[in-house]
């Protein structure tokens, strides 16, 4: 029987979701005339229950008797102009339907049989045209990539449609590679393999050498689609980082060098050099996350991932899966880390771009922003991980391709039953068990999808939705299993799905034998290659000890978590995959993992000629400050931060929002992961794409400096900081279609070199990283490339959280200091940006003097000599001072004459973004000890914190150049993103 149960608010009650939609229609779509929007939730059941049961469920499960009403098989709509009904396309994850089935089973006392799907109706009243309602449906209510929508001007009578039954036929196709080179390229393109000619040729050669051996397994000489798909996934840019491991022929002027792998030369080597002096590095580069020492009992793990392409197409799903995906990286690091914080960084185009200026196939940046934010809310909040730190960058270059960085930190006991938890072991005979969600067509080709640029023909099945609760259940049970030592190794099913998780774990035992027929599916109709590479979310693969397999399966069952034995690990040297009795894949492990040819890439650096702007110092500098404070890049992100649970787990001791009214911007987040210990984890980020447009070398230096100074600013130990590098670039492979590929490659080389140079001098090792290329969007044969973007995420230790310092001014009469030198280097600054310039003089880093400052600042915080510390970054000294003052609810008087600077221009001193600088306030009685510690560094006493709530700055000529109530400054800073 088909039942359609509709639920809505009682007429007298206010419909919060409807009210929000109305606001979005008016503000985001600029459509006036909507009188009201009300929502109706719809549950469609196709099951063998009676009408009485359906009515009982309407009352007991689907509606809230206090505020809602419901109807079974009759529409609830009364008065309307338009109805828009939005549901999911077949095959798209519908989380509520899964919960509904469990809810029905609980109530009726028997297992639910049949199907459930959900939808939502928007009942719209007012003067809205057909054209406008179309716009509202496609630009706001539904995302046609994953959802179906129907626009009605009459009540909907829905009798349901019979679902066509599909039978799975395990079809395996064979692909003939004994063809011309042109044909090889065509095969790669048409199958979305993203493999180049040379790689296709290597594969062809491999098969020619294997004819006899393949016969033994009942395989012909042609590769099966399962095999080809696995090779493509494993050899994808996403999984093998081909560009970062390529040989680069780098030219600069008439100098040329050959670099053998950017990763080995700059990233790994930096860490190797540093590691000789640091005894706290535990597991680097080889696992799903970097692992370092926390204290004598625990290690911590950290990883930041990107989820750019999925978020461009379906921002909500892209962001949820970004979060839950990186959560699994921590769950799959070593034997599994418990999640202690998230950190999320986004790059969008400005949200106020006119809707008509956004190409039709691209989602408006505000929609992407809101969708991503909601995704992070659902991913982070539902799993229960505090979002402790993050930032949002706005730049026109991200219009076709936003960047969504999702990071997670975790903690794990160093030993469980005497076993080192930072290492994975797999023994032949261990069972391959897949735990968590089921396999669907969602996320097929994700790895190869991220390895090509976006265009109008981007495959839809690469979009994933994410089911946080399925993952939460899975994680909870896996921790129980971990603590009972049921498994020896664990890894997540991310890019490449099973082919990648099983393929990688098989290296540890030297082989595996899998039967795909055992894999649980969301719906029938998946062919073997899809089962093998699907990136359906919420799945981990574990190597279970044979003696514990029954206990393991029983435990999972008792927690309502699905676990399926798919095969076992072997030492055959082969990846051997069957479907039923038939072999569908047989590949040498060595070939799959080591057979990939190395790319040779060209890079030529010609420093872009960017004119340094020439303009007079503005007369009204108060206005300039207000403009910068309210700019998207500098303004308060409170609207976003509050919608994230940033203190679940009770360990967030330095929150993202601090100060007298809990709204000042923290430099870093501090988490106390173990209640009984006063040791904390400090997390921060550094990112500045504007600098990258001028010179990525200095961008890299600046990003590392920013991340490091944020940690030190909050009180973190400079000697114990680890870094993650995360490069997001356009396509750096030179070709006819990509004529400036060599320039983009040169930008990459310079950024990597910048990383090396400053990391080695600071002694801050890289412990893991990520790179994402092809961040481009092609429309009407024009390619929009993002600015070269490097995110540096830092994780540090604060030995005693009692010594943490927040950025807000604390007390009137306190002395205000600037630490570090201010130089007239305003290239890429927010000040120039607001004036429409990029500029050429990009801020540089002087590692030797910076290091001295950081060490001194550590001594200051350890002795609790600072009342507040705030780093100077976007918007420079002026913004840092203003934020310090208004976050503390206090005024400030500062003289620019006392600021150590190489210029007399007030605007340059105020807004220069020179690195390695801090604004520090101290109680007067600490003056002598404070200055003694900074002896030898550039620093200066520049003013006072005042009781009078006025922000006053005197210029280099002793005249007052800025005077504004702190309330005015704060309001300018807060109003921009108060949506």
């Amino acid at each position, binding site marked *: 029987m088909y039942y359609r149960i509709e639920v809505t608010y009682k007429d007298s009650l206010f419909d919060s979701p409807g009210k929000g939609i109305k606001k979005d229609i008016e503000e985001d779509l600029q459509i006036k005339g909507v009188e009201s929007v009300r929502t109706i939730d719809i549950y469609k059941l196709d099951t063998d229950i009676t009408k009485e049961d359906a009515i009982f469920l309407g009352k007991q499960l689907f509606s809230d*008797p206090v505020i809602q009403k419901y109807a079974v098989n009759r529409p609830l709509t009364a008065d309307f102009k338009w109805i828009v009904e939005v549901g999911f396309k077949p095959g798209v994850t519908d989380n509520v339907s899964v919960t509904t089935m469990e*809810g029905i089973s609980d109530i009726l006392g028997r297992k639910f049989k049949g199907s459930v799907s959900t939808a939502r109706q928007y009942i719209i009243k007012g003067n809205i045209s057909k054209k406008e309602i179309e716009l509202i449906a496609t630009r706001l209510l539904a995302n046609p990539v994953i959802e179906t929508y129907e626009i009605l001007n009459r009540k909907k009578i829905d009798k349901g449609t019979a679902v066509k039954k599909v039978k799975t036929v395990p079809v395996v196709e064979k692909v003939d590679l004994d063809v011309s080179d042109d044909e090889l390229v065509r095969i790669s393109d048409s199958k979305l393999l993203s493999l180049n000619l040379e790689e296709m040729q290597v594969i062809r050669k491999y098969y020619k050498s294997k004819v006899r051996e393949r016969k033994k397994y009942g395989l012909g000489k042609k590769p099966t689609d399962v095999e080809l798909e696995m090779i493509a996934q494993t050899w994808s840019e996403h999984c093998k980082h081909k560009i970062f491991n390529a040989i680069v022929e780098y030219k600069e002027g008439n100098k040329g060098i050959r670099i053998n792998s950017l990763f080995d030369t700059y990233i790994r080597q930096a860490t190797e050099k540093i590691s000789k002096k640091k005894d706290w590095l535990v597991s680097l580069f080889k696992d799903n996350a970097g692992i370092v020492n926390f204290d004598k009992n625990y290690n911590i793990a950290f990883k930041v991932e990107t989820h750019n392409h999925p978020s461009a197409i379906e921002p909500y799903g892209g962001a949820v899966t970004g979060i839950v995906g990186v959560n699994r990286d921590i769950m799959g690091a070593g034997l599994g880390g418990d999640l202690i914080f998230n950190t999320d960084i986004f790059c969008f185009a400005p949200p106020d771009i006119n809707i008509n200026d956004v190409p039709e196939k691209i989602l408006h940046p505000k929609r992407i922003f809101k969708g991503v934010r909601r995704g992070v809310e659902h991913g982070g909040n*539902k799993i229960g991980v505090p979002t402790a730190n993050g930032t949002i960058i706005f730049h026109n270059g991200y219009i076709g391709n936003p960047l969504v960085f999702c990071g997670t930190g975790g903690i794990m006991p160093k030993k469980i039953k005497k076993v080192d938890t930072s290492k994975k072991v797999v023994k032949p005979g261990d069972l391959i068990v897949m735990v968590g969600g089921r396999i669907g067509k969602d996320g097929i080709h994700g790895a190869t999808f991220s390895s090509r640029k976006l265009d109008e023909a981007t495959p839809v099945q690469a979009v994933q939705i994410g089911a946080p609760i399925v993952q939460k259940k899975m994680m909870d049970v896996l921790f129980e299993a971990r603590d009972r030592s049921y498994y020896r190794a664990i890894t997540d099913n991310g890019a490449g799905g099973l082919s990648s998780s099983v393929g990688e774990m098989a290296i540890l035992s030297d082989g595996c034998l899998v039967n795909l027929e055992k894999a649980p599916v969301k719906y029938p109709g998946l062919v073997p290659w899809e089962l093998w590479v699907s990136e359906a979310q919420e799945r981990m693969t574990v190597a279970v000890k044979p003696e514990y397999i029954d206990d393991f399966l029983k435990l999972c069952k008792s927690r309502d978590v699905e676990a399926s034995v798919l095969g076992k690990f072997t030492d055959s040297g082969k990846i051997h995959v069957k479907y039923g009795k038939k072999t569908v894949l047989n590949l040498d492990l060595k070939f799959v993992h080591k057979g990939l040819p190395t790319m040779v890439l060209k890079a030529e650096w010609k420093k872009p000629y960017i004119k340094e702007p020439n303009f007079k110092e503005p007369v009204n500098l108060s206005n300039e400050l207000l403009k910068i404070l309210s700019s998207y890049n500098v303004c308060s992100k409170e609207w976003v931060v509050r919608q994230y649970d940033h203190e679940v787990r*009770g360990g967030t001791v330095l929150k993202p929002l601090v100060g007298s009214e809990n709204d000042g911007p923290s430099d870093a987040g501090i988490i106390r992961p173990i209640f009984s210990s006063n040791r904390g984890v400090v997390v921060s980020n550094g990112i500045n794409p504007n600098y990258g447009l001028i010179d990525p070398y200095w961008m890299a230096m600046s990003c590392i400096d920013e991340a490091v100074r944020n940690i030190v600013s909050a009180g973190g130990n400079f000697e114990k900081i680890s870094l993650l590098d995360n490069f997001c670039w356009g396509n750096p492979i030179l070709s006819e279609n990509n004529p400036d590929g060599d320039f983009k490659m040169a930008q990459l080389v310079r950024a990597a070199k910048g990383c090396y140079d400053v990391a080695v001098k600071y002694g801050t090792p890289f412990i893991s990283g990520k790179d994402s290329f092809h961040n481009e969007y092609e429309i009407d044969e024009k390619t929009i490339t993002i600015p070269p973007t490097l995110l540096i995420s830092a994780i540090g230790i604060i030995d005693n959280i009692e010594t943490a310092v927040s950025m807000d001014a604390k007390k009137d009469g306190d002395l205000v200091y600037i630490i570090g030198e201010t130089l007239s280097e305003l290239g890429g600054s927010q000040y120039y940006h607001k004036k429409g310039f990029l500029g050429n003089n990009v801020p540089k880093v002087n590692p030797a003097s910076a290091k001295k400052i950081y060490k001194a600042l550590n001594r200051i915080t350890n002795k609790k000599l600072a009342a507040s510390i705030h780093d100077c970054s976007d918007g420079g000294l002026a913004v840092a001072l203003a934020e310090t003052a208004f976050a503390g609810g206090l005024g400030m008087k500062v003289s620019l004459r006392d600021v150590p600077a190489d210029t007399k221009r007030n605007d340059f001193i105020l807004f220069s973004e020179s690195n390695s600088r801090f604004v520090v306030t101290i109680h007067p009685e600490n003056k002598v000890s404070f200055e003694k510690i900074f002896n030898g560094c550039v620093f200066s006493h520049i003013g006072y914190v005042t009781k009078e709530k006025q922000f006053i700055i005197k210029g280099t000529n002793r005249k007052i150049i800025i005077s504004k109530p702190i309330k005015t400054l704060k309001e300018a800073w807060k109003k921009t993103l108060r949506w």
Partner: protein
Amino acid sequence: MVKKKPKALVLLTAGTNCDLETEYALNLAGAQAEKVHINDFIAKKRKLKEYQILTIPGGFSFGDDIAAGKVLANKIKFKLEKQIESFVKDKKPVIGICNGFQVLVKLGFLPDIYKKLDQEVTLAINNTGKFEDMWIYLKANKRAKCIFTEGIDKVIYLPIAHGEGRFISKDQSIDNIIKKQNLIVFQYCSSSGNINFNSNPNGSENNIAGICNTGGTILGMMPHPERFITKHQHPRWTREDLPDEGDGLLIFKNTVNYVANGL
């Protein structure tokens, strides 16, 4: 003689996520807390009567799908009803925080004026339409006849983190009885203790943040007392002189003391 510590249950289910801090708060308050999955009670591997205190912690049970707390409430009602009813009948204390409060309300345990275990009030989507994490001030009702607020005389400060916390009574008579019988335990207020429109974060009727049942042994509240147990959890500990103990701990201590002094 050392008194035996009361055994406190932190009930787990799919989507529970405030279990660690709730366990810590209970232990610090003098209980012996244990986290146990609901399925272990349904499968009769464990029994509720092993415990003297039941806490349903915050989180997103079953993803808040359909409505917050709804599916877990039904699971308890249809799978564990007898066990939990006898737990309550024995006057053993029950605390539901955030999602736990939503569960107790939807289960009909709070306020349960008519003793029929029917749902009499609800926690709807915030009038802001948003999930929000922020710190708010609370005034405890001195006349509330419940075991949880003993000694809470001053305005207390705790965080909320929810999207569905707007308290609504089914009708005017329930609203009246809640007020008359002093079932309101906590109300959102200003820092000086004024209960007004501006201090209401989610549109709750009468600024209600927490209520108890008529017997005074069941407490439901949206704010998170377990997130303010030590001073470092306070958002302004880096600028204000604060006692080491957080405002939330007293609620757990009162619960433990009530049990320790004999039910």
